[in-house]
Structures are given as structure tokens and as C-alpha cells.
């Protein structure tokens, strides 16, 4: 993922490190906040710094690292941007960021939710067919491969390893 934006002067600023830093600061701050809910009592003894100590220490370190990352990102981003603007022959729209992974993520979220409803086999078949067609396979190849995939997984996990795969609330027999 290459998060960048073209500014008014035509230079391209790279925002990835800033976003990463901000996300880490937020994560660290949240962890610090919720560490307040961790009970003080324990069986460790009087000299035990307690169960809150380590999470608080780590969440503060994350905040510091996040801030550092964001500051470095702002400084380097502007440098990279001006360098890119000065460099001859560097197209502003080079390497456009791909959003295909977000589509893939949406497919997987729907797949996992569907698994709870229609069970493992049906949801896996539908997901595999959809994904393979989206990635450029012919529909009949996708169907055959998806059937084989579900069959192999069932043979391996259900028949051999006796794993109970999700049947789904609708109670499909497969």
C-alpha cells in the first residue's frame, strides 16, 4: 500500500509513515486507557509491580514510537515530495495505489459471516468460486476447483482429523 497525495505545488507527499505513526499513537493511547481497568490486586506479593505495569510501559513505548514515526514521516514525506517534484521525468501518477486488497478483505468478511449462517462447505464453495472468477479464472474452472478444494478440506479435516467444521445456523447437511 502506497499512501500518497499530490499537493498543489505538484509534489507528492508520502503519508504512509504518518498514518502508521498516528495509528500506533491511537493504539498505544487506547491500551494505556484500558490498562486503567486492570485490577491492582494480585497474588504476586508486595514487591510485584502488578499486572498493570507491563501493559502501561508497553503502551507508553508504542505512543513514543508512533510519535517518532509520525514526525519522521512528516519530515521525510515533505523531502520525498519536493525531491519527486524536482526529479525530471517522474510522473505524478506513477504506481497508483491498488485497492484490490480491500475488495478481497470485504469478500473474506462476508465469507466468515456467511460461514456462521450457511456452514463451512457452502460458504467456502461460494467464496472460492467468486474469488477465482474475480482473479481471472473461467467460471467452470472456478466451480470445478472450488468443489475439489471443499472435498479435499472435508476429507482431510472432517474424515481424517475428525474436526467439526461449522454447520451453520440454517443447518445445511454439508
Amino acid at each position, binding site marked *: *500500500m502506497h499512501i500518497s497525495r499530490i499537493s498543489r505545488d505538484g509534489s507528492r507527499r508520502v503519508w504512509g509513515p504518518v498514518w502508521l505513526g498516528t495509528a500506533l499513537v491511537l493504539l498505544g493511547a487506547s491500551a494505556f486507557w484500558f490498562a486503567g481497568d486492570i485490577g491492582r490486586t494480585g497474588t504476586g506479593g508486595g*514487591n*510485584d509491580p502488578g499486572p498493570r505495569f*507491563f501493559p502501561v510501559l*508497553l503502551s507508553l513505548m508504542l505512543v513514543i514510537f508512533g510519535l517518532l514515526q509520525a514526525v519522521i514521516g512528516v519530515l521525510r514525506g515533505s523531502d520525498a515530495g519536493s525531491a519527486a517534484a524536482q526529479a525530471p521525468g517522474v510522473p505524478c501518477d506513477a504506481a497508483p495505489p491498488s485497492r*484490490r486488497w480491500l475488495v478481497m478483505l470485504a469478500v473474506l468478511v462476508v*465469507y466468515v459471516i456467511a460461514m456462521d449462517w450457511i456452514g463451512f462447505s457452502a460458504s467456502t464453495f461460494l467464496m472460492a468460486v467468486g474469488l477465482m472468477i474475480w482473479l481471472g479464472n473461467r467460471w467452470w474452472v472456478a466451480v470445478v476447483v472450488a468443489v475439489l478444494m471443499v472435498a479435499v478440506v472435508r476429507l482431510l*479435516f472432517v474424515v481424517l482429523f475428525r474436526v467439526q467444521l461449522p454447520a451453520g445456523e440454517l443447518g445445511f447437511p454439508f
Partner: protein
Amino acid sequence: MGALLHHSVLIPWLLGMVFGIFVGATPGLTATMAVALIVPISFHLEPTAGLAMIVGVSFTAIFAGDIPATYLRIPGTPASAAAVLDGHEMAKQGRGALALTLDLFCSSLGGLIGVALLITVAPLLAQFALQFSFYERFWLAVFGLSLSALVSAGSTTKGLMAACLGMLLSTIGIDVVSGVPRYTFGSIPMMRGLDFIPIMIGLFGLSEVFRHVSRPLGTLREQAVSRRESLPVLEACRMIWQQKFCVLRSSVVGTIIGALPGAGADIAAWGAYGLAQKTSRRGSQFGTGVVEGVVAPTSANNAAVAGAWIPALVFGVPGDAVTAIVLGALMMYDIKPGPNIFEESGEQMQSLFAVALLTQVLLLIAGLAGIKAFGAILRLPRSIVLTAVVVFSVVGSYALNNSLFDVHVMLIFGVVGYLLESQRVPLAPLILGLILGPMVEENLRVGLISSDGSFAPFFTSPICAVLVALLLLTYVGLPATRVLWRRTRRIRRVG
């Protein structure tokens, strides 16, 4: 030994190695991913078969990465990057089959030497490690984490950040010292903490899929150098005999580098390649298809896999991400890594070493088949491979505890892994943080309890002092020396 050759062990073992060949030879899929995907399957087998499967995959995937490195100039795994230089040049000269046969034999020999060193060194080191108390173990874990952050790809700050994130994640669940729940938000599945395997599968399996779908897919057949050659086994044996010292030296170097926390098979391969180039009479010809340029990195990368087990087994500090998964798997088999491992799990250790040795022999069979089958691997559309990875990631995570919660965790960490890697944040320190976090915390807290709250014992024992000095040297001494050296050079240039 007889138990290892039983069909109930041998069949999954060989199947695991075939899987390792497939994943390792597919460009973009890593050895770490192969091991992460095989672990949930291995838990459903008897312990010896499960361990054999995991060990088989970890060694085979590293070798298999050399196959596309030679024919396509694309390393199958990062550990094969150094093998690209001379291996692909040999393939362009029509000697690709010879390069791969050399790769295979050197990988097997490197693995054998690495495992032999492991068997010799690990028990001696364990005897020494028996002197370690909470204070030494605390610094050892901190040292392992710091070193992994230092040598990982990307900046050291990002490595340390990943290690902190991993340690913070390890605090989720019931605190083992006080029994108090932390970050559980009233959720029952969160009480037992985040399971290590779904996180691994997400970080190294699903994130790869996200990365692959973000760029054009297809087959790689067009880029392949011609493969219509028979495998010149005898010629390869003759060449290896001529290069026996190079093989031995590279394997030893690979084992030593592999044993350093954070320095995996990729760094070992580059280290051995550089050493071979410096010591060879044909150093200037390296990169043009020189035999030593193939022999050195391929001996070292498999030896490093064995080397990484030394600190993992003896100290519980894994050397790289692959070993971290193996370590996590060992814990699930009730093998507790640490100085007492040879007393408490002596029998299991013996079978583990026997498996590791026999794997090097089986590697020859699986490897020859893999080289022959590479054409079929190239013909397989990547869209099908990626879909299969998604399905096995989901079912593998679910099958651990028969819980969709683990699937959700895997999915979340797939996204986290993809986003972090897109910002060049190394994932290995995160995993090491997740594994070593409890070791750091427990030893710090129990150490403080036993010292009546005093930090002094953390610095006064000789081993602690050495570890602290090494840490200071790494993080203060080395950068300071670098700055001074640069300044001196600049002054000289101006002068």
C-alpha cells in the same frame, strides 16, 4: 528410529515435504507461511508425525526457494536471494540442472552439518544455561528481541516498534503472576489470550494473499529459462568434493549466523556468499555463474535453520520467524524449551534430532521430485494457489480450537500484517515479541519479588553484566562508532 520409519509417520512427513517444495518453489510464498499453514494440520497427528511434518516443511521450503531463484531469477523465499546471482547465470548458460543439483546436495549437506552442530552444542549450552536465574533470563529475552529488531529488514525503530506491539499483544488474557484478566473486555475467548497460531497464519499467510491480489496475477512460465536437461548427479558430486571446504565453512557460518536471534537463513546465505567471494581465487568472477557462488549460500541457508534451533531450544529465544512457529508448536506438544529441556523432554529431543537428521536424507528424494515437478508448479494459475491459501488459512485457524473467534483473529492479523509490511515494518520482531513477551514480564516481576523490589540483581551478576554490555554496545556503541568513522572520513576528504 524404527518408529520414525513407520508409515503413520513417514507418509505425513513426506507429504509435508512435498507441501514445503510447493510453497517454497512458488515465488512470493515464504517458508514461514508454509510452516504456519502446516502447524494446525500437524496437531491432529501423533506427536512424532506432527513434529516430523513441521521439521520437514521448514527445511524443504528453504531449499525449494532456490528452484525459481535459478530458473526465473525470482527467489522462492528470502533465504534464496543470494542463490539467484550465480544460480541464474548458470541456468542462462544452459547449466541450470547442474546448479539445482548442486543446490540440493549442498542444502542437504548444510542441513546435516547444521543439525550435527545443534546436537553437539545445544546440550553443552543447556548445561551452562542452568546457571541462569530470573535476572539472566530477563536480559536474554530482551537481548533476543533487540537483536531481532536490529537485523530485521526495515529500520531498527520499526523493528523495536513491532517487538513492543507483539509484547503488548502477549499481555491479553489472564495474567499468570496475579491471575487478573487484562484487555479481555468480558470476552471468554479473550481470557485464554490470543492464540499464537491464528496470528501467525494471518501475518504470514493471509497478508501474502492481500499483497498478491494488489498486483497483476498470472503464470510465470514465460520468464523461465529452458529446463530440458537431465540432472547431472555425478558431476554435481564431483564438484561438491572439489568445494568441500567451501561447503563446510559455509555450513558452519550459516549455523552460527542462524543461531543469532533475528538473523535468519537469508542473512546466513548472504554472509556465506560474501565470505566465499572474499576467500575464493575467482572472487572477481562471482555473479557470472561460479560454482562457489551456488555452493556457499545454499549450504548456509539450510544450516541456518538448524542453527536457529540452538537458542530456541536451550533458552526459549527463537532465532527467526520460522523457528518461532516451531517453538510455539513444541510448546503445544508439551515440550518446554529451556535449560532443562534435555532432562524433562529427553526422549522427545532425541526423536526431534533424529527427525532433523533424516529430513536431510529425505530432502534429496523430495528435492529431486520438486525440481522435476517445477514445470507443473509454474503452470498452476496463482489465482488458484491464492484461493487455496485463503481456504487453508481459515480452516487451519478454525481447527485449532473449533472456534470462529480464531478465524476472526487470523483475519484481523492478515490485515495488520499487510498494512505493517506495506510500511516496511518487519513482522518477525512482532512474533518474537508475542512469544518472548511473557518471558520478559514474568522474569522481571518474579525477579523483583525475589529481590524485594531491588533492581540491583538485574545488573550485578556477571552474565547480566555481559548481556547489558552487549545491548549497550549494539545500540549505543555501534551507531556512535559509525558516526565517528563517517566524520573522520569527511575530515580526511576535506583535508
